[in-house]
């Protein structure tokens, strides 16, 4: 007989008054199956009503983040066999409102992201030829690329928000992924927007909320190191604050 493993899965519907609860399912324990494969087995063979997000199943689209045994994971990269003999507790990502079952509401991040101005800001005109067409690339050496590359690897999977104790307590905190993206553009040799982003981050709960727990970096499936980005920003922000005290506006 094929061996199985038990998944204890969070169920919740916004239109019912019952609080979220765990439902148990027995799924085949196969060596190449991930937690996501287990959830799809439930959906296709046992219970069509289970709701969860997924798409690429190769760790790049960022859809399938959930808390697995209390730890934020991409379920497409979490193998059932690593949790044997189980049971495995599968819950929606922590620190977010639940929308339904394993689906969380991530609209807060989507609202905060544009405030970071995560796009190239130039203080000159683009390289254009006489016809207004783009005339060549901005040069960027491999070393200049390496300076920001790590921070460009973020897939917006939200695991770092689920792991961040500060975000859990203070939803005004911009949060690890958004700050890492701000740093990604600041460090890009083609960008001139660092000051604008700092102005945003220096205010309110921007970067100051972070107490440097470092959980964000630990759970990041793409090794982005958001905690490092936040520390760099704190330094920049502190320097800026000192300048603001000492120098007249035009010289900051």
């Amino acid at each position, binding site marked *: 007989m094929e061996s199985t493993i038990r998944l204890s899965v969070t169920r919740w*519907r*916004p*239109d019912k008054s019952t609080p979220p609860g765990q439902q148990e399912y027995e799924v085949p324990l196969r060596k*190449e199956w991930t937690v996501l494969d287990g959830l799809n087995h439930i*959906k*296709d*063979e046992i219970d*069509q*009503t289970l*709701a*969860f*997000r*997924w*798409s*690429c*199943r*190769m*760790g*790049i*689209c*960022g*859809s399938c983040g959930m808390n697995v045994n209390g730890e934020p994971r991409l379920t497409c990269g979490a193998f059932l066999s690593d949790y044997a003999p189980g049971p495995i507790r599968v819950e929606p990502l922590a620190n977010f409102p639940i*929308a*339904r*079952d394993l*689906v969380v*509401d*991530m609209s807060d991040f*989507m609202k905060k*992201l*544009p405030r970071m*101005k*995560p*796009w*190239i800001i130039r203080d000159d005109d*683009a*390289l254009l030829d006489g016809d207004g*067409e*783009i005339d*060549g*690339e*901005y*040069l*960027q*050496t*491999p070393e*200049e*690329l390496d300076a*920001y*590359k790590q921070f*460009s*690897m*973020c*897939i*917006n999977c939200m695991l770092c928000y689920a792991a961040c104790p500060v975000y859990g307590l203070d939803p005004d905190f911009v949060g690890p992924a958004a700050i890492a*993206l701000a740093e990604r*553009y600041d460090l*890009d040799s*083609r*960008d001139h927007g660092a000051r604008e982003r700092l102005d945003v981050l220096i205010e309110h709960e921007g970067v100051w909320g972070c107490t440097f727990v470092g959980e964000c970096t630990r759970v990041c499936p793409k090794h982005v190191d958001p905690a490092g980005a936040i520390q760099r920003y704190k330094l920049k922000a502190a320097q800026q604050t000192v300048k603001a005290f000492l120098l007249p506006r035009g010289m900051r």
Partner: protein
Amino acid sequence: MSEDAVVADHDVLLVGGGGAGLRAAIAIAETEPGLDVAVVSKVYPMRSHTVSAEGGAAAVIAEGDTLDEHAYDTVSGSDWLGDQDAIEAFVKEAPRELLQLEHWGCPWSRQPDGRVAVRAFGGMKRMRTWFAADKTGFHMLHTLFQTSLKYSGMTRYDEWFVTRLLVDEGRVHGVVAVELASGRIRAITARAVVLATGGCGKVFPFTTNANINTGDGMALAYRGGAPMKDAEFVQYHPTGLPFTGILITEATRAEGGWLLNKDGYRYLQDYDLGVPTPEPQLRSMELGPRDRLSQAFVHEVAKGRTLDSEWGPIVHLDLRHLGEKLIDTKLPFVRELCLKYERIDPVTELIPVRPVVHYMMGGVHTDIDGATPIAGLYAAGETACVSINGANRLGSNSLPECLVFGARAGRAAASYAASAGPPPAAVAAQASDEVRRLERLLGTPPGDDSVAPIRTEMQTTMEEAAGIYRTGAAMAAGADRLRELQERSTRVGIWDTSQSFNTELVAALELANMLDVAECMLASGLRREESRGAHQRTDFPERDDARFLTHHLVERDPDGSPRVSELPVTITRWQPGERVYGR
């Protein structure tokens, strides 16, 4: 329809937020800033399948390369079925589009002096493929998405699933869509609509494609009255991981990887693809086109020269001689995927691979500006068939295609929208019909049947009928089977009674879309009694230019059955000839 059934009215509505959709949206925002633009997508834009593209994006920039050579490679790669006017426009505009992405921040891999680097790719006679290591699609998509955030006037309907186009008297006026979070069903009206929903790999059981690639835009257009073009041409990528179907990029071979059969023999030399050399040769051996490489695999299976795995026959992709440094610099994602999903390290071990459904050359019939025969309706990217890919797409042409034709479709849609009038009253009645249809579907009591078994049968049927090699008999049997599955799918009830994130409802609607696209594939394939590119028939093994140097259009008859007609291929400068690789 009551007023509150219409959520909003826009000038241009993009359906799909991947490479083509976002490029179109930005093109409109830049060229016609006064227009009201909205993007509706069933996922957050950065989840779109563009994110999974690995190897690169082709465009002429390197010294010594020419637009004519890129055009010729694409024409011959297409087995002369690509439209040469579209290909000429494509190769001309591709460099400018990739430079634009560079200016928007895409982290292209670089040469030591800071200029953009290029790599070799299958079927290309020059090194012209730009790359961001082996996560090119990921970086392009996030660059486009983040850049799109600059345009605060752009409306986004994230996680809304479009169920129908509103078409009246040959003009499109918007869509009906379900907001997944709330279950609300609403009409979103617009002067012009651009379909950019990507491909349809999930029609097959074994595919590199993501769960979301269910041919939604193709089916929406088809049911709205626009033809599907060249639907028989489905690309099998030669190197997928055996169980998951996860793509191992062609860039592995561009960097010097070898394909080995069970004897450790570089078997491609037996299939008129050139002679093996230690260093990769352009348009030769492992750098041949995907259709020919996947076909060679089938012949190796027949000769008993492949290896058996739990998941069927496999061959090996050998990267060991490339060394750890090169793999970590240029193919880090490949290493990560192999370690995670195969538990092997390509630095020291062979990668098991087999051909896997990867890309749909066919799609919604459009002209060179993305316009479909329905006024106001445009399509771009994998959803569309312009056609630049003909019977076989070359690796690294699809990402620039999303940009070039996304931008073109966006600009054309903007210009159309600027002069189009408001939606007629008939549209409201159509929207109400659609709302009732969906409510009826949700209210259907569940019976013995459900989405998953029908979907599985469809996938098995398509693998048997429309694989790398096909026959008329198998395709006809498959078409019969699809008709039964269509019938069964209309009786599927929905167990899930929740309004919020009713993913069972979405799966039922996606299944209906896939069944329509699958029917088009087989109807078109049955009509093509020849072998060309990715459409290989053992009962008609030769290319037949006299009869079939033509596109196929599939239209939906009122009774729902597919009707096939022909459309001439545009030949400008390259008369049909032999496809020569490796000699």
